[in-house]
């Protein structure tokens, strides 16, 4: 998921809506998909650009913590799998930037906003990958949390976003399985490998819970996004679902979830768990996570160092066009 705290436009009551806005809301309520050329409220367009843009940025920044271990992957097979996975993430970025473009914003504009710190990416990618089990934990927990949010988004009201999510979800579930597969190997391995696995779970558990965003009672932007079906479930619903799915998986691995408050609640048929430290979440969002500076710097450097490459290709395209035009003139 990779959209947190996406600012939505203010919720309008039915009486305040224009006839166009009422007709639009009715289409959404009937479950119709909204397509690029169709009329949409400006707030819907802006909120979607923020959400899809943040999601796209998360995919490309997300290459960095995983890319951190490609050159150190412990076997050829693991290296190949990790390369394929990171390639998928870049591909997800591509679909999502394309989906955002249908709303009238270019990829370059979105990247400029990312580089200027005006747009965010998911807080999770500001945490470091410190041992090989972290690559397992990223697949298992981070992709697991992402899937939790993205599966319902396959039904989102905006057609291109919905279709991108359908493709992305197929690949993400493969990613999650490969992550869990690494965790199984580590948890069943040598004492040092088990220690790495537990250490990875200790460090990634709460940041993974934070991926769903603050508690519903503190989440100011949810109502309008839910009415527009840009957001399908509340943050707390998804977090609970994630915990209920993940705790038995951790137990199966023989690992300890780093939460003393974790307890099965028979009545609700789910796990009670401790809230993450939200002050840490807000610090990370504000730019003070362990890797914020390096992540953004890596992206800005890649972009700036690559300017000559992009300019060279553009210049060549212009020359080639001019040569074709000249050849056409000569032929006429």
């Amino acid at each position, binding site marked *: 998921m990779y959209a947190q705290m996406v600012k939505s436009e203010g919720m309008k009551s039915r009486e305040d809506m224009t006839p166009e806005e009422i007709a639009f809301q009715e289409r959404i309520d009937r479950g119709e998909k909204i397509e690029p050329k169709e009329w949409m409220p400006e707030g819907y367009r802006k909120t979607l650009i923020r959400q899809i843009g943040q999601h796209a940025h998360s995919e*490309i920044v997300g*290459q*960095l913590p995983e*890319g951190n271990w*490609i*050159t*150190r*992957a*412990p*076997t*050829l*097979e*693991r*290296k*190949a799998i990790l*390369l*394929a996975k*990171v*390639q998928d993430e*870049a*591909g997800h*970025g*591509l679909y999502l*930037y394309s989906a955002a473009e249908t709303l009238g914003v270019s*990829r370059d504009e979105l990247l400029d906003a990312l580089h200027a710190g005006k747009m965010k990416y998911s807080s999770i990618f500001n945490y470091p990958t410190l041992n*090989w089990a972290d690559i397992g934990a990223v697949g298992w927990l981070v992709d697991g949390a992402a899937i939790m949010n993205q599966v319902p988004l396959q039904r989102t009201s905006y057609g291109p976003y919905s279709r991108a999510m359908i493709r992305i979800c197929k690949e993400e579930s493969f990613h999650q399985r490969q992550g869990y597969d*690494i965790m199984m*190997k*580590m948890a069943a*391995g*040598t004492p*040092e*490998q088990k220690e790495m696995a537990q250490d990875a779970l200790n460090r990634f558990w709460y940041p993974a819970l934070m991926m769903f965003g603050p508690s519903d009672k503190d989440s100011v932007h949810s109502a309008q996004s839910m009415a527009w079906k840009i957001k399908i479930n509340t943050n707390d619903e998804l977090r609970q679902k994630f915990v209920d799915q993940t705790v038995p998986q951790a137990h199966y691995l023989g690992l300890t979830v780093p939460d003393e408050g974790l307890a099965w609640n028979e009545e609700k048929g789910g796990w009670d768990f401790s809230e993450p430290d939200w002050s840490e979440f807000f610090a990370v969002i504000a730019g003070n996570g362990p890797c914020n500076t390096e992540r953004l710097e*890596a992206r800005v*450097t*890649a*972009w700036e*160092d*690559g*300017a*000559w*490459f*992009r*300019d*060279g*290709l*553009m*210049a*060549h*395209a212009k*020359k080639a066009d001019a040569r074709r035009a000249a050849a056409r003139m000569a032929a006429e």
Partner: protein
Amino acid sequence: MGSAVNQAAFFEWLCRIGDNCLILGHRVSEWCGHSPVLEEDIALANQALDLIGQTQFWLGLAAEVEGKGRTADQLAYLRDAAAFRNVLLVERPNGDFGNTLMRQFLFDAWHIELLRALEKSSDARVAEIAAKAVKEVAYHLERSADLVIRLGDGTEESRARMQKALDTLYPYTGELFMADASDEAVVAAGIAPAPASLKAAWDATVSQVLAEATLTHPGDTYQHKGGRKGVHSEHLGYILAEMQFLQRAYPGATW
């Protein structure tokens, strides 16, 4: 079939091909998340993936031919630099994106000729691997040649960078065509083409692409060598220190 050939020479030759793929794949994968545009991140990850996949086949066959019970992973992760047989070209540092592309192009233009010849290898296992890899490498060459042309004939800056990359890397291409007793043994057994026999086609591709790219061919320059015999540049040691870290730090663990 391969049984007529000296197995030590065959093993040596397979390590040369496999190590080229492994070390170049490693270098290419260093770009992950850092390339100039998203499409290039995807293309480079894909190319690194192809090369690592080919490594698994070549080193897997090398291990089988050696017959000492080693695996492709053991060859990749537990040999030291002196036992690696890749050419110096593929261990050259990435440099800027132009340098990376030029290294790729010079290598691809050779790699495709090698694989086309290996499709006709007397050893069925070699022919089978080559038939699979040649499809991937045809695409690598199409892409690297296209980008060399577009950047050579792009802006002043892009041309200058590509020319500098060419001048820096060209002296590392001669090693691709050198031969020793191991090569002669696999050539005699019909397993592989003579390295020198690939030179004319490589020259033709390189000259044509450089001309279209408006780049100046470096001509006859000094040619470095050593990698194929295990005498490497200082760079390989660092590649291996990084690549082999987990296998070396936790011997015997399975991953």
